[in-house]
């Protein structure tokens, strides 16, 4: 294991540098800021419209968090997770990595770490900006900051898990994007609304189980996200997500080390 630390660090550093340079990163960064932009539009509309008010916490939960949890982290994890192996193969640059004294597992782990850190930062900035805009009048309320922190933690954990899952998909499958789109916008967005045990077959169920509970005695702000949710215990949810992340990464490293890649001119 100690033999992996240095190569993982090298790969991490390389790809953290490279991902900042890529053009598509700027496009995704704009997408990550869309909720903040939307929040700004809503705020400006409220200021300009006499008598209008904005229920900041509700909009944050039902728009910003929903967008990030049910769409953005899925899309980012899908693209970047599958890219961990696919971009080296499509770009034919894999040879430069596999002919270095760098274990193949380090390539997977290093890139996973680099993309995870970068994407996490992108998501957190977008969410924090939207939060600051929507709850500008409640920033002194510590409870709201706790909601933000918990939400950011859920998003970060979700990103880590989905990124690992799609890393594995990218290593194992040729048409990983198609599989990923079906998984994200078919399975993960529909099955969580199935009653009973079925929803436990989705990762989204465990993430939603970690959200702040719906307030009793009225509509809680996370009502939309919690719709039909029969939440698992938070500890079980965290353990499940961590286990899926570890298993997916482990399998990805194992499979990647055993696969052969041949580029023809």
């Amino acid at each position: 294991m100690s033999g992996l630390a240095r190569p993982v660090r090298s790969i991490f550093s390389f790809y953290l540098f490279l991902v900042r340079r890529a053009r598509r990163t700027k496009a995704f960064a704009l997408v990550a800021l869309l909720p903040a932009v939307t929040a700004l539009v809503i705020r400006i509309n409220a200021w300009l419209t006499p008598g209008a008010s904005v229920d900041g916490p509700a909009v944050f939960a039902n728009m910003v968090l929903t967008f990030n949890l049910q769409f953005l982290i899925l899309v980012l994890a899908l693209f970047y997770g599958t890219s961990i192996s696919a971009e080296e193969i499509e770009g034919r640059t894999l040879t430069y990595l596999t002919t270095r004294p760098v274990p193949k597992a380090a390539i997977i782990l290093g890139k996973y770490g680099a993309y995870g850190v970068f994407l996490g930062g992108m998501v957190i900035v977008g969410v924090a900006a939207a939060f600051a805009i929507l709850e500008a009048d409640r920033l002194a309320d510590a409870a709201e900051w706790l909601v933000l922190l918990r939400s950011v933690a859920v998003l970060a954990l979700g990103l880590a898990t989905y990124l690992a899952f799609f890393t594995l998909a990218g290593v194992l499958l040729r048409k990983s994007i198609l599989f990923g789109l079906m998984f994200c916008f078919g399975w993960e967005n529909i099955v969580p609304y199935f009653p009973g045990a079925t929803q436990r077959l989705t990762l989204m169920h465990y993430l939603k189980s970690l959200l702040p509970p719906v307030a009793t005695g009225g509509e809680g702000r996370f009502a939309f996200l919690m719709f039909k949710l029969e939440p698992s215990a938070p500890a079980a949810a965290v353990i499940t997500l961590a286990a899926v992340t570890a298993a997916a990464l482990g399998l990805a490293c194992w499979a990647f080390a055993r696969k052969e890649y041949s580029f023809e001119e």
Partner: protein
Amino acid sequence: MPIAEQGYTHWGGRFVERRVPWGPITRLGVRMAFKRKFFKLAFALSFMPAVVFAAGIYVSERLEDFQFMFKGRPGSTSFLEVNPLYFKSYFAGDFLLFMLVMMMVLGGAGLIADDLRSNSLQLYFARPIRKRDYLAGKLATAGAFVLLFTLAPGVLFILLKIVFAGSFKILTAYPWIPAAVVLDSLLLATFFSAYTLLISSLSKNRRYAAVLLFLGYLFSDLFFGIFYGIFHNPAFCLLSIKANLQQVAAALFRVPPAFDVPWLYSLLVLAAIVAASAAVLARKTRGVEVIK
């Protein structure tokens, strides 16, 4: 020995006893079957009864939700009444539009992206092919798939209705339907081809183009939902590709639109996307790449 004998040499390895000796034969047989074209079609079609029966199980549990198929909902006709609304429901149906997007994702994302990656544009334009020929060819590739699922079934529906009814009543009662079928099919083909090529030309990476194609469609509808949910203003439907297509389809088939927004505005939005596509494609499809 420096020069080796090139004739037959006996293989010097050893045979390994397999636990399941017929396994490789079976695997090869299955693989070879899938290489036959019509086998794949038959394989796919064979799933249809299973799909229909699975849907039937779902329907059997939710009968109350499906009674509208036979009785109709208040203020609208029943599903099984074939009229302009029936056609509009097909052409502007959420599922069909979603599947058209998926087809573009699968089959269209790489149309230009792959050429940009492999620097093939120079090869194209070294032939007696103009840029418009190249783009027309690419547009037709995407458009053909769309027409296969719009114009072809649309015409088939009309013909089947005439044949099964034994009369031309559908045409006498609703004479605009054939034109609407053709126009809406062309609209969908033109829009989706242009949209697909626009996204495909933005990157050399086909996977990135595939994700953007999907995202653009999905997010446009998502943000429409968000703004509509907050402001309750139907004008926000202009943000959604799906809603715009549905508004125009409603106008063509002369049925009430879902949103109280002039259909011309929706058409203008779609036209703007097509125009943007034309402008971007003209810039991106060059034989020479300008390096800054």
